[in-house]
C-alpha cells in the first residue's frame, strides 16, 4: 500500500482502488432489501420473484453491460438451470444447495459450448444465434417428456435449505431469504469480477474491440469466459425459481422471458450491476400495480415505457438520473456520463 513514492503514483493507486470499496449507499441498498423481506412476510412470494428476476437480469448485465453483447436467448440458461434443479429434486435429490450448484453448472456448461457461436458474425447474427439456441432447447425440453414431463411439467419437493430452513409454500419467507442470500453472494462475485483486470479487459472489448486485440487481449476467449459465467448466473436464477416455486414449465424457455430480463435491465440501466435488480423491482411492482387495475393490458404500459425510453435516449435519461445521483454515488455517475 505504501510502496508508492510520488504523488502521481499515489493518485494512480487511489484511482485504481476507488472501484473496490463498498460505498455507503450500496450497504444501505442491501440492508433495505433484506429489511423488506423481513418486514413484509405476506409479500414474500412477490419479493422472491423480484430477487430471482434481479439475478436473471444481473446475468444479462454481465454480457450486455460488461461486454456489450446483446442476447435474445438468455431464457435458455434460465430454463436449463430450472430443469436441472427440478429433475434432480424429482429424483429425490431435493437438497437446494446441490440443485443450485448443478443448475448453475449445467447452464454454464451450455453457455461454454454455445459461446463460440457468438464469435462469428456481428450483433445481428448474435441476436439470432442466442434466440435460436433458446428455441431449440425449449423444443428439446418439450420433446423429452420422459425427462422433463413435457407440457405437464414436473412434480417434486425440496428438502430444507442446509437441512434447517424449509422453503416452498409453507416457507415463503425462507424461500425469499434463500434467494436473497444467493443473489447477494453472486452479486459480490460479479462486482469483484467487474473490477478485476478481467472486467477491465471486457470493458475494453466493449469500447473498442479493434484496439483491445491490438493490446494483445485474446478477445474471443474473454467473450467465451464471460458468456459462460453469465449463463451460470442465469442457470442459478432458474434453479432458484424451480426450487422456491416447486414448479417448472416449458414457458421458462420462452422468448418473452429473455425479453423481460432485457427490459428489466434496461429500465434499471446496464453496466453498473445494480440496474438489473432495480429494474426487476420496478418491472414487477409496476406489473403488479397495473395488472391489479387492468389485468389484460399491463403490457401496453411496459411497451410504452420502452418506446419512450428509446426515443428519449437511454443514455440521456440515465445521465439525467445519474447527475442527480452523482452527489451520493460518484462512481455510477462516472460510468453514465457517456
Amino acid at each position, binding site marked *: 500500500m505504501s510502496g508508492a513514492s510520488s504523488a502521481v503514483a499515489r493518485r494512480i493507486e487511489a484511482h485504481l482502488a476507488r472501484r473496490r470499496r463498498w460505498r455507503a449507499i450500496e450497504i444501505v441498498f442491501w440492508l433495505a432489501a433484506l429489511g423488506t423481506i423481513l418486514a413484509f412476510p405476506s409479500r414474500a412470494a412477490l419479493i422472491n420473484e423480484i430477487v430471482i428476476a434481479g439475478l436473471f437480469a444481473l446475468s444479462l448485465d454481465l454480457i*450486455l453491460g460488461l461486454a456489450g453483447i*446483446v442476447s*435474445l436467448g438468455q431464457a435458455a440458461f434460465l430454463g436449463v438451470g430450472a430443469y436441472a434443479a427440478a429433475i434432480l429434486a424429482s429424483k429425490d435429490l431435493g437438497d437446494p444447495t446441490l440443485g443450485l450448484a448443478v443448475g448453475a453448472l449445467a447452464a454454464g456448461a451450455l453457455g461454454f459450448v454455445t459461446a463460440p*457461436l457468438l464469435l*462469428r*458474425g*456481428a*450483433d*445481428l*447474427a448474435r*441476436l*439470432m*444465434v442466442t*434466440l*435460436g*439456441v433458446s*428455441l*431449440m432447447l425449449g*423444443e*428439446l425440453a*418439450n*420433446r423429452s417428456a420422459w425427462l422433463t414431463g413435457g407440457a405437464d411439467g414436473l412434480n417434486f419437493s425440496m428438502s430444507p435449505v442446509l437441512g434447517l430452513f424449509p422453503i416452498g409454500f409453507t416457507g415463503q419467507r425462507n424461500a425469499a431469504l434463500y434467494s436473497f442470500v444467493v443473489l447477494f453472494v453472486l452479486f459480490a462475485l460479479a462486482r469483484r469480477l467487474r473490477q478485476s483486470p478481467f472486467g477491465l479487459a471486457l470493458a475494453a472489448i466493449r469500447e473498442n474491440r479493434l484496439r483491445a486485440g491490438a493490446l494483445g487481449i485474446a478477445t474471443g476467449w474473454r467473450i467465451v469466459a464471460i458468456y459462460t459465467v453469465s449463463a451460470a448466473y442465469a442457470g442459478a436464477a432458474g434453479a432458484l425459481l424451480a426450487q422456491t416455486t416447486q414448479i417448472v414449465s416449458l414457458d421458462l424457455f420462452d*422468448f*418473452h422471458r429473455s*425479453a423481460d430480463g*432485457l*427490459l428489466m435491465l*434496461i429500465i434499471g440501466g446496464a453496466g453498473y450491476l445494480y440496474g438489473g435488480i432495480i429494474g426487476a423491482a420496478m418491472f414487477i411492482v409496476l406489473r403488479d400495480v397495473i395488472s391489479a387495475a387492468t389485468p*389484460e*393490458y*399491463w*403490457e*401496453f404500459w*411496459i*411497451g*410504452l*415505457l*420502452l*418506446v419512450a*425510453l*428509446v*426515443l428519449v435516449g*437511454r443514455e440521456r435519461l440515465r445521465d439525467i438520473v445519474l447527475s442527480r445521483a452523482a452527489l451520493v454515488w460518484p462512481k455510477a455517475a462516472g460510468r453514465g456520463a457517456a
Partner: protein
Amino acid sequence: MLTILFDGVAYGMLLFVLASGLSVTLGLMNFINLAHGAFAMVGGYVTALLMERLGAPFLVTLPAAFLVPAILGIVLERTLYRRLYGASPLDQVLFTIGLVLMAMPIADYWLGAEARQVHLPDWLSGSLSLYGVGISRYRLFIVGVCGAIAAALQIFLVRTRFGAQLRAAVDDARVANGLGIDVDRIFAITFAVGSGLAGLGGALAADVVGGVDPSFPLKFLVAMLIVVTIGGSNGILGALFGALLLGVLDVAGKYYIPSIGAFIIYGVMVATLIVRPQGLFSRGDGR
C-alpha cells in the same frame, strides 16, 4: 408425399410474403424490426372484420389488407422508425419489442382476445386432385398469389429505377444522397410496401392458423426471423429460398418425424449462422 411437399411450398410462400418486408429492412437496411408481425396482424384483422361486419367478399378485402398496414407503416416510419435507423441493435430491439407489447393489448382492447375467423369462399374450399395428388384449393391459391408477388418484387427490385435506387441507398445512404437519390423517400416507400405485404400475408395466413388474435404479432416472429436469417442480406431471392426451405422442412418434419418437431428448423437456422453468419445467400465478403 407430393401433397406434403406442396403443403410445404404453400406454407413457405406464405412465410415469404409475411417476411419479405422484414428481409428488406433487416437483411438490407440492417434495421431490426421485431414489430413486423404487428403489421401482419393488422392485415389479418382488416380482412376478418371487413368480411364479418360488411360482408365483403374475401378477394375484395385483400387490397385493403395490404393498404391499411402500408399506410400505418408509412405513418410510423415517418414519425418513429426513421429516428432509429442509425441506432444500436439494442435500441432497435427494445423499441420494436415495445411496439409489439403495445400492439397486442390494443388489439385485445378493441377486438377482444378471441380469434377472428376468416371464412373462405366456397370456390377456395376443399381440394382438387391433380394427377392423383390431392391439393387444397386454398393452398394452390396461396402459391399462385405469393408466387406472383415474389416474381413482381424481384423484377421490381432488379429492373426498375426505384430498385436500383433502393440498392444504392442501402449500400451507402450518404453516397446515394450525394447522387441525388431521395433516400428518405425510398426508405419510407420500402417500409410501407413491406408492411403492406406483411398485412397481406397476415390476411392470407389467417385461415391456415385458425384466425387472427392479439398474439398474432409473436406467432410468426420466429419463423420470419429464421427466413431472413437463412436468406441473409440477399433480399428477395434469399428470403424466398429461406421461406421455401423452412416451409418444406417444417411441414415434412412434423409429418415424418413428429418426435423432433420444430427442432429441425431451429437447427437449420443455427447451422446457417455457424456456416455463414451473414446468411446462406450472402456474398462471401459479408458486410
